[in-house]
Structure formats: structure tokens, C-alpha cells
């Protein structure tokens, strides 16, 4: 016979209670947010996966550049003012990808925002026109054969000087065409530029840049005291401040723009080849600090400040995956996932109850405890490391129901085996556990290994799934060791189970009492029983 095992069930049960209560208190501590953060696929929103490419062909992106890019994107996305937005990286070096997630439904703005990747510069405005394309006409008003028309030119229109050709091309530019006002093609700051504003409302002819985006050290959206509207305040470095002083002195003396005057007194903030804003100079700015006034809403002011502050990225970003999920679809997915999980759990419990009777109740309780523990641990992880629950995560949890229940099945079958070997119920609960424990740990180790590898090497939804799978496996081990086993041991000592009944699920008579089959199969056991065999 195996050496008697002394299990202290109450001690194990209290260990679990401590863990459960500890996490619950942490999770539901008053005054903190005790909700599970939902992933984009469940609450709706936009996710953009970007692959950074070096600005210079063939160059290698350093970790520093990547970190800087993420920081810039995070600032921009935070500037949207949407809670729980996220910018994360996956992989590193040449394989790196940046994942931008913004909950709520702002797909166009999110994509726009993260895509604003390129050069920011400040240019003096030469003249401002209406957005329509004008083609040169002859004396009778008919289009001249072979002249430049709207189909021939697109943003950015560039030239080394304000030549006649340049002027004709600018005139022919059609700023009502979305491809011309949505930007995306960086301009050469050393040359003249003909372009549109980002809404397609007007068309600009611009002089070479006098300040580059890198000269901006800070930009803030502000609501000045006593002021009527939002402004964007700007700070420049020494080089920028000098250039600004010169340019503003010259420009503020010029006539108002939009009156046909050229040159006129405004400067254009050009991002990715299109005009983001074209404020006019009211007075010379000498201190390196400027503010842009306009009919800004709070949102517009913040967006502009973000663009100014974080305009120039060290890399170009290519959006490789843009996913938008509407909040209603997300809600449906969440409720379907929860229903499926609930139904699955119920079915498993009914099956276990039917098959294992009283032990089935223990298994059901264990599943409930495991579920409860998963819930509070998830809240705590939401709080501490910002873990979000995704649909893949829910799927992981549902799959885990089966794997968790299997631990109990392995244990119960072992107990039955021990009883079949002729052990008493009390002994069987302990010796069966010793054998089941080894199997359990080995099998769960494989699961955790799979989860860890998946988590470390994958991107996006696979990660969420892997995390939940790993977490549930750890919880499975915890519950099996600290709840199921001690509870079964306690049951085994109870009068009800000792009396033996068909409801216990462990009735020795039904299970077949003693056999010698195992004596032939397991030599170690055979040796122990040499006398009787």
C-alpha cells in the first residue's frame, strides 16, 4: 500500500479563500474603476495596424525611432480625447508593427490622424484662390488646344520659381477633387508650392518654406482668459524664432489675403502637401512665441496643436490593416459570446452532474469558483496592466471551460481507479490525487507553454486569446489544488460518502471493487502486493 497521505483540506480551502477575497477586494476597492475593459471588437471602434518604413530607402529603423514614433502617435491619438485609446508595438526591428486602437466610431479621423506622417512646414502665402479649376481661354472664351487642364495637375504642384507655367498649373488645379485635398504626398520645402486646403475650400500659391516643423518646440490649444475662442499657442527654437521674426515683420506689412493681393499677409501651415491652416500675421512676432487665432472649436484647436507639435515623424507609416467595428456589432458579439459561454458552462455542468453525481456537484462548484476567480483577476489586470477583453479572449475562456473540467475528470477517474483497486474511499481521494496531480501538471504545462509562445510571437487578437488561455490554465491548476481536491477529501470523509450510495458517483460495488488487472499492468503496485498476488 502507498504511504498514507495527510491532506489538510481546510488549510488548502482557506488558501483559496484568501486568494479569492484578496483579488475581490483589489478588484472592487471602492473609488476605483471595477469594470473589465473591453477590446475594440466588443465595444466598437477603429484599429489601424501600421508598418513603419524608414524615410530613406534601405535604412534601418532603430528602437529609438520606433519608440519616438509610438510616443508621437500616442500624443496625437490622446489628442482626440477618446478614453482608452491605445498605441502599442508588436515585434521589433524590421518586423515591427504599430497597433493604434481608438474606441468609439471615428474611423476617418483616426486614419487621417495616424496617417499624417510627413513633413510639416510654414510657408508665406503668395495668393489665395477659389477651389475650382480654371483653364486658360483664348479671346473667344474657348479652351486653348493643348493647354494645361484639371486632369493634368495634382497636388503638390511644385516649381523652383514663380514662373508662368507654375501659375497656369496652379490655376488648373482642381481643389474640389478629394485626391487633391486629402494630402499624403510630402512636398519639397525648398520650392514653390501650389496646393489646396485640407477641406477643399480654397487653393493656395505658396512661397518656399521659412520655418520647418522641426523648429516647433511646443504647441498648445488654449482658451485665453477673457478671450472669445480657442487659440493655438506655439513656441519655436532659436532658428525658428529668428526666421519667424524676419518673416512676420515682412508679411504683416502686406495687404490682406483673399482680396486678390499677392503676396499677402498670411502664412500657411502645410502638412503632407496640403494646407492645414493659413493664419495671417497681425503684427511682427519677435519673441519666438506665437499664437494662432481663428474660429476654432476646442476639437479643431487641439487637432491643430497636435499636428504642429508632433508633425514630423522619424519614419513613414504604412497602414496595412484598418478595421472598423460598429458599436452595435460589438455589443452583439459580446452578448453572443456571453450567451455561448453561459450555455456551454451549463451543458458541461449538467453532463458532469449526470455522470459523476455528487462529484459532479463538486466539479460544477469548481467551475463556478474558477469562473469567479477569472472574473476578479481580469478586473485587477484591467486596472493594473490595462488588459482588455476581446472576442478572442472570450473564446479562449469558453474553450478553457472544457480544459478546466478535464482536470476534474482526470482526478475523478483516478479516484474510481483507486477504488477499483480496492482502496477505501478515504485513501482513494488522496492516492488518486497524487497520480492525477502529476498528469494534471504535465498536461497543463503544455497548455501554458502553448499560451506563452502564442502570446510572445503573435500580433493582435491572437495575443488576447493566448493571454486568457494561459490565465485560465493557471487558475485551473489553482482551483484543482486548492478547491476541488480538498473538497473531495472532505466529502470522502463524510458519512454520506462513506455509507456508499449510487448518488455518490463512487459506489465501490458499482465500480467493481477490486481487480487484479492493474496488478498485472502496474508492476510497482504488483510488487507492493506481492503477498496477496
Amino acid at each position: 500500500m502507498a504511504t498514507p497521505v495527510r491532506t489538510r483540506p481546510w488549510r488548502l480551502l482557506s488558501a483559496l479563500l484568501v486568494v479569492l477575497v484578496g483579488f475581490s477586494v483589489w478588484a472592487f476597492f471602492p473609488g476605483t474603476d471595477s469594470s473589465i475593459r473591453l477590446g475594440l471588437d466588443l465595444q466598437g471602434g477603429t484599429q489601424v495596424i501600421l508598418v513603419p518604413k524608414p524615410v530613406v530607402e534601405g535604412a534601418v529603423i532603430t528602437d529609438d525611432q520606433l519608440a519616438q514614433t509610438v510616443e508621437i502617435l500616442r500624443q496625437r491619438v490622446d489628442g482626440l480625447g477618446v478614453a482608452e485609446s491605445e498605441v502599442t508595438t508588436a515585434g521589433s526591428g524590421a518586423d515591427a508593427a504599430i497597433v493604434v486602437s481608438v474606441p468609439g466610431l471615428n474611423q476617418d479621423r483616426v486614419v487621417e490622424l495616424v496617417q499624417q506622417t510627413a513633413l510639416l512646414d510654414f510657408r508665406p502665402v503668395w495668393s489665395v484662390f477659389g477651389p475650382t479649376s480654371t483653364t486658360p481661354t483664348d479671346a473667344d472664351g474657348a479652351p486653348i488646344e493643348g493647354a494645361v487642364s484639371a486632369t493634368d495637375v495634382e497636388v503638390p504642384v511644385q516649381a523652383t520659381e514663380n514662373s508662368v507655367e507654375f501659375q497656369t498649373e496652379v490655376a488648373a488645379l482642381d481643389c474640389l477633387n478629394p485626391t487633391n485635398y486629402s494630402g499624403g504626398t510630402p512636398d519639397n520645402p525648398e520650392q514653390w508650392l501650389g496646393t489646396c486646403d485640407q477641406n477643399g475650400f480654397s487653393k493656395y500659391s505658396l512661397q518656399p518654406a521659412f520655418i520647418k516643423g522641426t523648429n516647433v518646440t511646443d504647441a498648445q490649444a488654449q482658451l485665453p482668459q477673457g478671450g472669445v475662442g480657442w487659440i493655438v499657442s506655439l513656441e519655436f527654437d532659436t532658428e525658428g524664432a529668428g526666421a519667424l521674426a524676419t518673416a512676420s515683420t515682412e508679411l504683416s506689412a502686406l495687404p490682406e489675403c483673399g482680396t486678390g493681393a499677392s503676396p499677402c499677409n498670411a502664412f500657411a501651415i502645410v502638412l503632407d502637401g496640403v494646407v492645414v491652416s493659413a493664419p495671417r500675421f497681425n503684427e511682427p512676432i519677435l519673441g519666438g512665441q506665437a499664437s494662432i487665432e481663428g474660429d476654432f472649436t476646442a476639437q479643431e484647436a487641439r487637432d491643430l496643436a497636435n499636428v504642429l507639435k508632433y508633425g514630423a515623424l522619424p519614419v513613414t507609416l504604412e497602414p496595412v490593416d484598418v478595421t472598423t467595428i460598429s458599436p452595435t456589432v460589438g455589443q452583439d458579439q459580446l452578448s453572443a459570446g456571453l450567451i455561448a459561454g453561459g450555455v456551454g458552462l451549463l451543458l458541461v455542468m449538467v453532463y458532469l452532474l449526470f455522470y459523476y453525481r455528487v462529484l459532479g456537484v463538486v466539479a460544477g462548484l469548481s467551475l463556478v469558483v474558477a469562473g469567479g476567480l477569472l472574473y476578479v483577476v481580469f478586473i485587477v489586470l484591467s486596472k493594473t496592466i490595462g488588459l482588455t477583453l476581446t472576442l478572442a479572449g472570450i473564446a479562449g475562456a469558453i474553450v478553457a471551460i472544457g480544459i478546466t473540467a478535464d482536470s476534474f475528470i482526470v482526478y475523478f477517474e483516478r479516484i474510481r481507479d483507486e477504488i477499483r483497486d480496492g482502496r477505501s474511499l478515504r485513501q482513494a481521494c488522496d492516492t488518486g490525487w497524487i497520480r492525477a496531480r502529476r498528469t494534471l501538471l504535465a498536461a497543463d504545462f503544455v497548455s501554458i507553454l502553448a499560451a506563452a509562445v502564442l502570446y510572445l510571437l503573435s500580433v493582435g487578437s491572437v495575443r488576447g486569446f493566448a493571454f486568457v488561455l494561459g490565465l485560465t490554465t493557471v487558475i485551473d491548476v489553482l482551483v484543482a489544488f486548492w478547491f476541488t481536491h480538498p473538497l473531495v477529501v472532505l466529502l470522502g470523509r463524510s458519512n454520506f460518502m462513506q455509507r456508499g450510495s449510487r448518488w455518490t458517483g463512487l459506489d465501490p460495488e458499482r465500480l467493481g471493487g477490486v481487480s487484479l488487472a492493474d496488478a498485472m499492468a502496474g508492476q510497482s503496485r504488483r510488487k507492493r502486493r506481492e503477498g496477496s498476488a
Partner: protein
Amino acid sequence: MSKLGSLGQRMYRGEISFDFVGRRKTWYTISAIILLVSIGTLVFRGLNLGIEFKGGADFSLPNATCTVESARGVAETESGGQAIVTVTGSGTVRVQTETLTPNESSILAGALADACGIAKDDIKYQVVGPTWGAEISKKALQGLGVFILLVTLFLTIYFEWRMAVAALVALAHDLLITIGIYALIGLEVTPATVIGVLTILGYSLYDTVVVFDKVKENTRGITGQSILTYDDAANLAVNQTLVRSINTSVVALLPVLSIIVVGALILGAGTLLDLAVALAIGMAAGTYSSIFVATPVLAQLKSATPEMKALATRVRARRTQIAKKTGADSVDGGDVVSSDSLSRSVEAGERSQPKRVSRSKRKRK
């Protein structure tokens, strides 16, 4: 007690013994046929890859009022390429085009919203660049490689290399069958499918480890006796864990099936459904392989070792001796004898210890 319980009891004691290990050729043939069909379909039909792998744009229009033709018209005009339009469950129109820039997709989403009488914000869309899919696939394969390496290491240390090999054979078997069925039915392969398949990795091995642990236990010190061959002991292990295998499969499949049913009823196509379908196929294959593939392969590998060959010879010799003594049994060696002699011993065992059973009876009365 349910019938399965008493079946389990008789299998545990070897009264009923399914010959999983001895009839390995039959199982190998069945598996080989399924695998050939799988590989054949994979080669000739290929997988129906989702846009996440080949690049493209995918728009879901819930409660759309437009016809498939009008939606296709709008999509082809706006995208300037071919568009595939399908209607999925609950009146959702799905439009797939070649890959678009974010701007183009936003414009197309707007046009589709106008044409189909729904708000643009209700449209769910996804745009994937063509290189990104290759990236994801590469990552998944890398993960697979690393996992297999680590798990082989673990199994070799915990069990032995032959068990690691047998477990991996079963794993490859499950993965191939799952992928093959995907190719056969033409189900779309999405990232969720990949998650499902990767889970099968874990599940298939988990299942195999449980059975192998019993094999390991049964064969400890097996060379010190001459009653059972390695094949017999391994087969007994499979039989002893069979009830557990069945229960585990039922319990694991119940939640997955509930996802499939709930998913199909409420959601139509989606991450949950894709995942559940892959899991259901893989889990079924995993259970099959842990019984019919992993253990027979292991027994075959193990029986080829000199010690086990010697053991098999000894067992055969002993059985011939018994057969000569009793004279009654028409014995010609092999597996038939093993189950025979097993059940005989079992009966003897029960006869030899009748008191324990009657005591429990007495107690209840």
C-alpha cells in the same frame, strides 16, 4: 451508475478490451486515407484565404436594404475593380474588394451606406494591405516552430524521446486533418481560424499527455515480468483512460458547439464562429489521434527496442507454456491471448476477494 460507468469499470479491469494498439494497421489505414484526402484537397483546391492573408477590403452592411446587384455596382464603380458581394445571415450584406487606401475605403463606405439606406457608422469595414497577411502567416509559423521545439524538449525530458515523436505525429495528424477539412469545405481562413488551429496544438498535446502518463505508469518496470508485452500495457492504458477521453471530449466539445449554435443563430459569420468551427474539427481529430494514432505509434517505436523485443519473446514463451498446460484453449499467441488471460485473471481476482464487496452490502442493509 450510468452504463458508461460500468463499462469504464470493465475496461479498467480489462474485461472489455478494445484492441487499439494491436490493430494499428487498421487505424493507420483509416488515418492515411483521411490524410491523403486532406493533402490532396490542399494541393488541388487550396485554402480559401480571407482578406487578412491576401490583402483586400471587406465591408459588412447590417440590415442593408439594397440588392446584391446594386451593392456590387456601387462597389465596382467606386473601387474600380472586381467586387464580391454576398448576403450572410440576418440580412447583412458583405462586400469584398481588392485592397484600397484608407481614403478610398472611407469613400466607398459612404457610397455603400447611401446606396443601401444605412448609416455610414453602422458599416464595419476592414482594409488589409497585401504584405501584411504574409507577415501574419510568417509569425504564426514561427510560433509553431518554437512551440514544437519547446514541447519536444519537455516531452523528451518528462517522458522520453519516443513519446515526444509519437505525440508530434499525432499533432501533425490533427493539424493536417483540420486544414484539409477547411480546404475540402472551402471555409474561409481568417486570423480566428489560425487561433483555433493553434489552440488545437495545445489541446491535442494535452490529450496525448494524459494518455501517455497512464502508459508511463503502466509500463514502469515492465521488463521485470513476463505477463504483458509493451503493446499490451499500452493498450490497457488506452482502455483505462478511454472513459476519461470520452468524457473530456464531450465536455470540451459542449462549449464549442454552443458557440457554433449561438454564433450561427445570433451573429452569422464572425470571429467566434470561425474559431469554434476550427476547434470542433481539431478537437474531434485530437481525441481520435490520442487513442488511435499516438499510442499505437508509441507502442510500435517502443516495441522495436531490444529490451521490449526480449520481453515480447518471453511473454510469448510463457503463454505457449500456459496453453500447453491448460490444453483447452486454442491459443496461437499474440494479442488475443493477452485479453483472454487478462479477463481470466480478473475473474480469479474477484473470486479471491469477495469479502470487501459483501461488507459494503452489509453496511447498507
